[in-house]
């Protein structure tokens, strides 16, 4: 039981990372019907920016952990958002209205280009970071096994929950969110009521990238090491999460992220850790066979 709860705690933390990245996939798919394969790299850049800002703040002599965390968060979100915006502007917007596969190929190209850009500018070696948030406490001990929650895990959960709540509010309750949803449902009509569609699409990329940056920051803090290649697998899994939850659905992306995190944690704990990716993608295949729209995906039911 204790072991189970420990894995649950670990899985939820992992799930938070996947969920945050998955939102970017699902939103972009929702609005322009395309899988942004460069999104994993955006997340990787977020992780690098977290380390860079950590080093810069360290040089400036900032030692207060809350200020340091806040600073890392803000810096990596802002700059990663700028990357997201630029990628859309350079690689996807010129191809809008082109055939369906063109932006997809452009996305794969962008993904490779960003990986190489980071590899060349930051070096290919693994980048370590010292633990920023240390310590934790024991929840309880059972049969000699202590269930632990680290302070970092609590920070991660609070941060992720706050972002998801804020983000859900933004999409469902604000004018910006309504414009975003309008573009998702009918871009032509959206422009006919005065929505600037191009700007809304840019905004979608910016928001998705900012959330991916948070996932990058969390990865950096949680694992302590990153390299230019972390975006590939994490991106694949977050994409899986988005599909699992129902691509195009925001709550679906969050749910899918948590599920993938939990599957991975439990599989690693009870079966073989080497096959955790096989388990994740295997479950994706099963879900797609029996529920092609994902868990919260919406099949279109419309009266004509």
């Amino acid at each position, binding site marked *: 039981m204790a072991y189970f709860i420990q894995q649950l705690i670990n899985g939820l933390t992992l799930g938070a990372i996947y969920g945050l990245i998955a939102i970017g996939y699902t939103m972009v798919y929702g609005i322009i019907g395309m899988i942004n394969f460069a999104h994993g790299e955006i997340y990787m850049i977020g992780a690098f920016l977290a380390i860079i800002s950590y080093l810069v703040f360290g040089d400036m002599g900032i030692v207060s952990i809350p200020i340091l965390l806040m600073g890392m968060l803000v810096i990596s979100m802002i700059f990663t958002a700028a990357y997201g915006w630029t990628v859309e502007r350079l690689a996807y917007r010129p191809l809008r209205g082109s055939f369906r596969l063109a932006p997809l190929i452009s996305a794969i190209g962008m993904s490779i280009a960003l990986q190489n850009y980071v590899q060349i500018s930051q070096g290919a070696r693994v980048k370590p970071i010292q633990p920023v948030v240390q310590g934790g406490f024991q929840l309880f001990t059972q049969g000699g096994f202590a269930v632990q929650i680290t302070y970092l895990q609590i920070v991660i959960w609070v941060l992720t929950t706050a972002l998801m709540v804020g983000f859900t509010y933004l999409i469902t309750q604000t*004018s910006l969110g*309504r*414009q975003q*949803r*309008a573009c998702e*449902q*009918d871009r*032509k*009509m959206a*422009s*006919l*009521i*005065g*929505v*600037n*569609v191009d700007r809304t699409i840019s905004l979608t990329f910016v928001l998705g990238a900012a959330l991916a940056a948070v996932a990058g920051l969390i990865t950096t803090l949680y694992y302590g090491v990153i390299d230019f290649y972390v975006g590939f697998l994490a991106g694949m899994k977050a994409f899986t999460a988005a599909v699992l939850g129902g691509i195009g659905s925001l709550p679906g992306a969050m749910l899918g992220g948590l599920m993938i995190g939990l599957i991975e944690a439990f599989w690693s704990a009870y079966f073989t850790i080497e096959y955790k990716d096989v388990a994740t993608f295997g479950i994706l295949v099963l879900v797609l066979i029996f529920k092609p729209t994902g868990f919260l995906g*919406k099949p*279109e*039911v*419309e*009266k004509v």
Partner: protein
Amino acid sequence: MSTEPILRISGVHTYYGKIEALKGIDVEVNEGEIVTLIGSNGAGKTTLLMTVCGDPQAQEGQILFEGKDITKVPTDQIVRMGIAQSPEGRRIFSRMSVYENLQMGALVTDPKYFNEDLAKVYKLFPRLEERRDQRGGTLSGGEQQMLAIGRALMSRPRLLLLDEPSLGIAPLVVRQIFQAIKEVNEKEGMTIFLVEQNAFHALKLAHRAYVLVNGKVAMSGTGQELLSNPEIRAAYLEGGH
């Protein structure tokens, strides 16, 4: 008041790829008028309305709205200048509630008008108030049409474009909708440019009318003139209307 029409379309050509859908259209709409454009399927009626909104843009010719050239202005800017459209197929945001759809319509206006405008739309179409929290996609065709017109009105337009509001709707509801169009025109002085296949209803309602054939204006006149024109009767009115 100046005599300059609120909308002046002159020599407009629009293409879809290589296909010329509009072959030099001249149409004028004066302030306070209901002008209707009738014509058969594929004559270019919808294309003309969409061209006014800049989607697609006219390749030749000029469109002036309140004296300003809007031929090459992006669609969302045109809407902000005061043109609203209830488009072909109604294009309700199906996964948004009726209320949210109306909120979307009010996007370009000052929020201070929202409650007043909402009350007006609900008064015009009481059904929308009853269905306020229902998702747009679950409304009947007639209700969707009311919502599409209501949504367009929420942007406080000075020119309202309506594309076939009677299409696929029960005759009784069609009468209601035409009544509402008339009311908006008479009470609010709204200028309306109406595209219709249902020529009988449209001509009865309109001050002036244009007949579009194959991308060109074939005839124009007052609604009454065209109603009594034998050619028009033969082509558009005979047979069950």
